[in-house]
């Protein structure tokens, strides 16, 4: 049993234009001390997935179905207060923009103390001491003095460190990081990633990393789930995804990453088109309208039949892909597309 098990998760919102199937049948597992990265474009359903795990969707406006088990405990059918008690306690979350995610009117100390006191029976003094220790731990100099600072007094990197400290106040076993470095400078990004890795080592946390930055994924993740149009289109170990990708969408993502080794004349290759409307999804493969290779599939299967997420080979059942193209042909394509980009393609 894995620490976090997500099975056939579905999240729907009713809007005036129709039902938005933001997440449709997503499954994955994360063990302690492991990092799972969920990768995809905006609107692929990655943040909705993370909010569903945390129970942050408004039950009046969102329909959440399927199964989310934290250490064996089912969260989808649990009462809101049960899930609330777990939030910040056994599972915590950090967000993309630390400035808007911290309350502008409360001091850093106040917000950290509050996080501790929700779940622990502490005096304010003890909670403050704990807050200071945690700020030290996330690498904030002069932690004692920072406690009385407000978020607007801090730099972007410091704010994200405060967010991380706040998430770690109660020693959570699962940390969901939703685009934790997107709003930060590149140098600060590297520091935050290093910090997350160190903290994972120290506390043995399971991490779910939501990102569209494949560089961050390579640095931090053990496993990767590639999402498109609210579903998983490819999943596997980080090496599978980087060196042996099979889904044309994953190929497109990898092809759109700038590389130092590429010549100056090589332009970045964006994936043509835009993500599908989650209200009226294509009948067949969700990626079909943007897929340059659908002609490789005989007939019009890509238009009529939803591909299943199937293991690439019996040898590596962890590596799954959702594509109608023949496996041998897919590997050929990957080699052709990435051969000049990736050294040592297996």
């Amino acid at each position, binding site marked *: 049993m894995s620490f976090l098990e997500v099975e056939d998760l579905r999240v729907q919102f009713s809007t005036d234009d129709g039902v938005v199937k933001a997440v449709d049948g997503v499954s994955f597992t994360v063990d302690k001390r492991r990092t799972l990265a969920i990768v995809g474009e905006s609107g692929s359903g990655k943040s909705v997935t993370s909010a569903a795990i945390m129970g*942050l969707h408004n039950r009046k406006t969102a329909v959440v179905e399927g199964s989310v088990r934290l250490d064996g405990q089912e969260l989808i059918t649990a009462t809101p207060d049960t899930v609330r008690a777990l939030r*910040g306690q056994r599972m*915590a979350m950090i*967000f993309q923009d630390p400035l808007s*995610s911290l*309350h*502008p009117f409360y001091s850093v100390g106040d917000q950290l103390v509050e996080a501790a006191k*929700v779940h622990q029976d502490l005096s304010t003094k003890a909670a403050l001491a704990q807050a200071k220790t945690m700020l030290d731990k996330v690498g904030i100099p002069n932690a004692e003095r920072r406690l009385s600072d*407000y978020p607007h007094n801090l730099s972007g990197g410091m704010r994200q460190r405060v967010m991380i400290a706040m998430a770690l106040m109660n020693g959570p076993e699962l940390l969901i990081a939703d685009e934790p470095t997107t709003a930060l400078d590149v140098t600060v990004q590297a520091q935050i990633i290093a910090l997350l890795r160190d903290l994972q080592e120290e506390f043995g946390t399971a991490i779910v990393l939501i990102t569209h930055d494949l560089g961050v994924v390579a640095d931090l993740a053990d496993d990767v789930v590639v999402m498109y149009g609210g579903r998983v289109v490819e999943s596997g170990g980080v090496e599978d995804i980087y060196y042996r990708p099979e889904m044309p969408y994953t190929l497109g993502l990898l092809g759109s990453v700038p590389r130092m080794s590429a010549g100056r004349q090589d332009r970045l290759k964006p994936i043509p088109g835009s993500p599908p409307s989650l209200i009226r999804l294509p009948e067949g493969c969700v990626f079909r309208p943007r897929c340059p290779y659908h002609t490789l599939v005989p007939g019009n299967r890509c238009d009529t039949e939803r591909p299943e997420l199937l293991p690439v080979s019996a040898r590596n059942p962890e590596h799954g892909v959702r594509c109608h193209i023949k496996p041998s042909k897919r590997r050929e394509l990957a080699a052709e597309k990435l051969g000049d980009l990736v050294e040592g393609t297996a």
Partner: protein
Amino acid sequence: MATYIVRRLVAMFGMLIALSIIVFLIFNALPSDPARLTCGKSCSPQIIEANRQRLGLDKPLPEQYGAFVKGIFAGRTYGSGTATFDCSVPCLGYSFRKGEEVTTLITRALPVTAQVALGAFFLWMVVGIGIGIFAALRRGTWKDRSVMGAALVGYSFPSFFIGLIFIFLLQIKLKVIGFTGFVKFTDNPGLWFNGLILPWITLALLYAAFYARLTRNQMLETLGEDYIRTARAKGLRERKVIGKHALRACLTPLVTAAGLDLANLLGGAVITEAVFNLPGMGRLAIDSVVDSDLPIITAVTLLVATFIIVANLIVDILYAVIDPRVRLA
């Protein structure tokens, strides 16, 4: 902070001086002769001239203004020779119409208005903000729509209409509330409450409707903020997410509106006082306008201006207390 407040108080003083000069000049530029207004129909030129001298209205304007200001801080003496009377500090003038010092009139009227205003203020803040939060949390549901619809109706009715409906229904038809008029709290707390409850509700209804809409809009905006999601992600109970994190962020516009509304009301809830026959500032102001009783009009105008300026200062200080990003400088 302290230097800021001192500086603001000095500025306030300057503003009041400027304002008092303007008010003084305007009233002296009016075609009506203040001395003529000091006596009724049986006036003779002799009486008018005598009064003109007693009031110092024969002096040049700057001198009159000087005497007015001196009266506020040092008191003044009207008339000369044997027919004099003293107007003690702070002397805001003397009303011949009413035969009383303006200061006396105001000290009698202001507490009445203050009781009406503060009671209504408390009522509408609690009810308005409560309804606003209630509606925001049920956005788009029939509860939200009906509550906000009711608020719109409350907001649309003029207060004299609401007041008269209350009088008709509760006092005349159902006889739940007696016609006691204004009774001092120290004389009889029960009758005091009885006399003020309808004015409170009437005034509060009007304002509560506005505050409910303000709170609802502000709350809806705040609930979409990232830090509210963070508060929930911490595992805080919804009560605390709303009551602490969201409400605190909604306070700034509420405090602004509340400060100015309260200051305005302290200058007299004109219509409500008239409907419920309360001897407050509004009544005093209206009577003096009808009678062209210039000393009272001048004093009331200055007083209301002072309230507004002080309220503004308090609101600005509260901003800094609520929002640490605001630096008072």
